[in-house]
């Protein structure tokens, strides 16, 4: 009976859901916000005209709060909720932008006088720098193989399973010193050896060669931050799937 009811629940209109939230349904509030995060992000970026960074996402928090505020302040019958929420988000973001502009002016002076950086929350600057460096190293190494990031966009396996297969293969091959040396010296994959030792087809290697080389470089060149990125959390879940 329960699950059936839940299906019916999902068909609630926004009005219904707002009513429930107003009545105190916290779960519903969370669900609603969760579903509208893409909308919130779109609204924010339309005003800020830049991507929201994961590490510095003040505008994101502001946007979420604004949406939450809209839920509280919305009165039924006074027009479309979504449009109202958009307005609230926009005004909060505009306020934020104005503050930022003023802050940056101030911090410029501060920097001169006090020699401090403007900080918007805690930031791991060393991590930032290192990651940037590692990306630069990757770009450079790829160049020696005549591969660009653009190539990787075009030629990486789009299909999930293929990608997994290629990544797992890369981890295996990375442990093989002989092959790794060959790759580094010849600047190409020793197809015969790899197909023989790891049981993949030549066609698979040919089709995914750039992706595999990039993966191997990330693994082999101690680009640990990148490695962590593709291994950690969601990445791990993906790999274990």
């Amino acid at each position, binding site marked *: 009976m329960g699950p059936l009811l839940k299906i019916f629940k999902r068909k609630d209109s926004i009005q219904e859901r707002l009513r429930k939230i107003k009545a105190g349904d916290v779960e519903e509030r969370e669900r609603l916000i969760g579903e509208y995060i893409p909308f919130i992000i779109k609204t924010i970026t339309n005003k800020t005209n830049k991507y929201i960074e994961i590490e510095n996402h003040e505008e*994101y928090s502001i946007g979420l709060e604004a949406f939450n505020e809209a839920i509280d302040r919305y009165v039924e019958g006074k027009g479309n909720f979504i449009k109202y929420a958009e307005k609230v988000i926009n005004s909060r973001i505009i306020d934020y932008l104005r503050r930022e502009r003023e802050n940056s002016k101030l911090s410029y002076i501060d920097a001169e006088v006090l020699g401090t950086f403007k900080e918007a929350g805690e930031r791991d600057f060393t991590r930032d720098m290192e990651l940037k460096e590692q990306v630069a190293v990757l770009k450079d190494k790829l160049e020696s193989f005549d591969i660009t990031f653009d190539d990787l966009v075009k030629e990486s396996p789009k299909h999930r399973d293929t990608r997994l297969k290629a990544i797992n293969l890369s981890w295996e091959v990375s442990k093989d010193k002989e092959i790794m040396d060959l790759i580094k010296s010849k600047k190409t994959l020793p197809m015969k050896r790899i197909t023989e030792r790891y049981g993949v087809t030549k066609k698979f290697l040919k089709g995914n060669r750039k992706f595999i080389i990039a993966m191997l470089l990330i693994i082999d060149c101690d680009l640990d931050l990148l490695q962590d990125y593709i291994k950690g959390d969601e990445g791990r879940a*993906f790999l274990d799937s």
Partner: protein
Amino acid sequence: MIHRGIVLDKSGDHIIVLTRESEYFKLKKKGDIEVGKEIMFLEEDILREREGIHIPKAIAAAIIIIALSWGMIYQFGIDLLGSFRTYAVVSLDINPSLQFEVNKRERVRKVIPLDEDANSIIDSKMIGMDIEEAIFYSINRAIEGNFITGENNVILIANGAKKEDFNLSLGEDIDSRIKENIHEDLEVIFISLDKEDVKEAEKNHISLGKYEMFKLINEGNPEKTLKDIKETPVSELIKENREYLKGKIAGSKGNGGRANETLKEKNDKEIKEETKDKKAEDRLEEKARKERDKKEREEEREIRKKEKDTNKEWEKSEKEKIKEVRKSQKEREKEKRNKDRENKGNNRGESKKEDEKNEGNKLNNRVKLKDNREKDKGSQTLIPLIRRVSLLKH
């Protein structure tokens, strides 16, 4: 659907990111962003190279179709550069009388039988052939069919322009070429006519060559009608009117001079001819036999070739069909993949949190992950403070 990725590269109108799932995406450029930063982005920010692929493919397909049809049309000699039109006419009289209509490229676009026997010589293969080739072919057929014999061995080839002043490259040396390549006992008379004569000949339904003959013979012998000339084989005509023609052709226009020469030669050989005749006949018969054998072999080859060609065409059309099928398959796959991506979000949530019944409550899941991260790194959470209080209750 929200994604995250590290910025790997940036250029004028796009940036490239790497996601946690090792996907490389090209995104719209939005303001300034530094390489190495991790950003949030939506499905709609991803630049996919879709339209760009379809259009070039369509153009390529169009070019291939045009090229193929051009090739086919050209093969059949009906090419678009006005070779639908007859530029010149060439007649061949032995006694089978036939006439070729030739296009700008000097290829046969039409063959007309001018008497009954001609039907046995004429062959659809002639269409599209180079005129000289067609002439050779016809002569060989005539030999096979015993139209050319020791006695009847004069061939009259006449040509005239129909359009403008088209000059056939068919040379006077066709005479020697025929002698060398087909049979030395053949006699060839080669005449050229001007446009008016061509028209006259057509009006009277007579071949160019015979018309010319008629003109010459008629002057001296008005009793001879067109019909007479039409029905008499060239060899006879020449024999009958040898003396007269000799004189006449000497004085006639253009290549008539050449015709004169041939007649002269004929005169000289006259004495030898009687004795030669028999030998010639034998040789011609032998040649006819050889030709017939050769022909059979050639026919077999043609049949095999035709099979190959139809196979090729069939293959081509099959390949095109396959391309289309693959195209629609790819499109279906793309749709499927997009649908998969949308579903993925829901699935991931559920598979990770089996012990919690959250009905795809992404918020909770993310918070849980973030909590773990927090302990390790002490960075900000995705959800503002106000939320954390309420969520801690769960």
